[in-house]
């Protein structure tokens, strides 16, 4: 996964300025944190821009950081078939979200966002069918939140 991540984040900053809140890299994998209000707009630009061309949404998930404000992070991995490059974008949102759904752009957002909702309780606005996907319908917790223990005696 070498090489183009830095340029992708650079172009993202040039295009959206302050909406790119933070950026970083580890082992040559680059990521950008974007303003949640711009989530859908930025994803659309990344998909449709002739250079970026991130035409596949590989994955959407969340990370819970209870000590941070805001505590939830939505993480998406995009893949560009033409440039053979993966980019990670994130948005920091409030406890239950909301954040815009990426379903208008990619069908793969459907099940992946449902799982993120199921596991973290993050609400994706504009999702056509935001139901639990792995847990029971009558389950009330969100398993991947950090306050939920692994075992409950």
């Amino acid at each position: 996964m070498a090489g183009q991540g830095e340029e992708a984040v650079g172009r993202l900053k040039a295009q959206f300025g302050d909406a790119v809140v933070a950026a970083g890299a580890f082992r040559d994998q680059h990521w950008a944190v974007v303003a949640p209000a711009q989530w859908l707009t930025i994803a659309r630009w990344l998909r449709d821009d002739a250079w970026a061309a991130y035409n596949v949404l590989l994955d959407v998930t969340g990370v819970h950081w209870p000590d941070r404000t805001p505590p939830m992070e939505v993480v998406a991995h995009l893949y560009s078939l033409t440039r053979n490059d993966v980019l990670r974008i994130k948005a920091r949102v409030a406890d239950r979200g909301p954040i815009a759904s990426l379903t208008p752009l990619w069908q793969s957002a459907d099940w992946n966002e449902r799982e993120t909702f199921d596991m973290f309780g993050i609400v994706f606005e504009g999702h056509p069918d935001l139901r639990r996907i792995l847990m029971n319908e009558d389950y009330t917790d969100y398993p991947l939140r950090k306050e939920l223990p692994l075992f409950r005696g």
Partner: protein
Amino acid sequence: METITERPDTLTINMGPSHPATHGVLRVVLELDGETVVACRPDIGYLHRGMEKIAENRTYLQFIPYTDRMDYLSPLAANVGFALAVEELLGIRVPPRCEFIRVICCELARIGSHLVWLGTSALDLGAATMFFHTFKDREWHYDLIEDLTGARLTTSYTRVGGVAYDATPDWLKRVREFVDAMPNRIDDYEALLTKNTIWLKRTQGIGRLSAADALSWGVTGPVLRASGVSYDLRKARPYSGYENYQFEVPVGTEGDVYDRYLVRIEEMRQSVKILDQALKNIPDGPVNVDDPKIFLPSKKRVLTSMEELIHQFMIVTEGFTCPEGEIYVATEVPKGELGFYIVSEGGKSPYRCRIRSSAFNNLSSLARQCVGELVADVVACIGSIDPVMGEVDR
């Protein structure tokens, strides 16, 4: 009874969660107009074990057995994928001999998984003979895996920084026998199906997925390649030395059930080619990284040196520490792209371990494939996606 559309003239039927053609505990709610599917809603989660939660509460090494239980038809491939992800996080690379052994494992797993797919999906469509042929060879492949790892299914073979045991010369000789026999066996399978009129009628033009649709649904692996997109991680982002092997990535044109069949058959031939090269070129040398803070030191050193004894004690009781950082590492497992997104805060367990499952995303395209087809073809579509619910539900 749940319904999907508002139409009063349709019949809703429930397929699964315990149905021979759903390949595990998959439930599909189908709404039918006569025999035509007008709506399809897969219902998953019956095999959800919360692996991502478990990963946060285990050391990196302790999570390897859980990767066996994701895609239980090719556990070795997931073992390798997870080990590679943690090695990337640590910034280490295993010795060449280990990479060769891992490639052999991955390709054996691919052949084994495709044999199950071929046998069961043909059985679903009434070609029962196929099942006996492929399961005979799959037993052979299981014998090899058992001799290498000590287990048929729960292999847990890789370690972070190596593998559990080195491959013996005798074992490599036996893999060679398997590799030499397989091309003829694949010819035999093809003789039964490739030009079989019933098979063609049941598979051609069924469950079509265009390249654009496949990409939009996040489909990867043979299902994506059958739709004409040449995306294979062994070529796109090579790992374990795959860049040094000569092999081709078969692609289809129609994106139907038949093309998925052709792609997987050809993938088995290519796997045989890769195995052949790996067996010819496997070097001697160590199989594990020489870093006692990550990998268990050899027993001899443990028994003769105080420092090594301490290292062994620390690794076994506490595990090793990963640096702070986050990585996404994906490998081409038999079903497609299996990715691990690991967020580390430093420490001995992942802060977050996301498993990007190939079968989960592939299965999400089922409704797209089935609507408009006959109800009997749903079975063909599920079989051609080749979902393993252990990996879908995690």
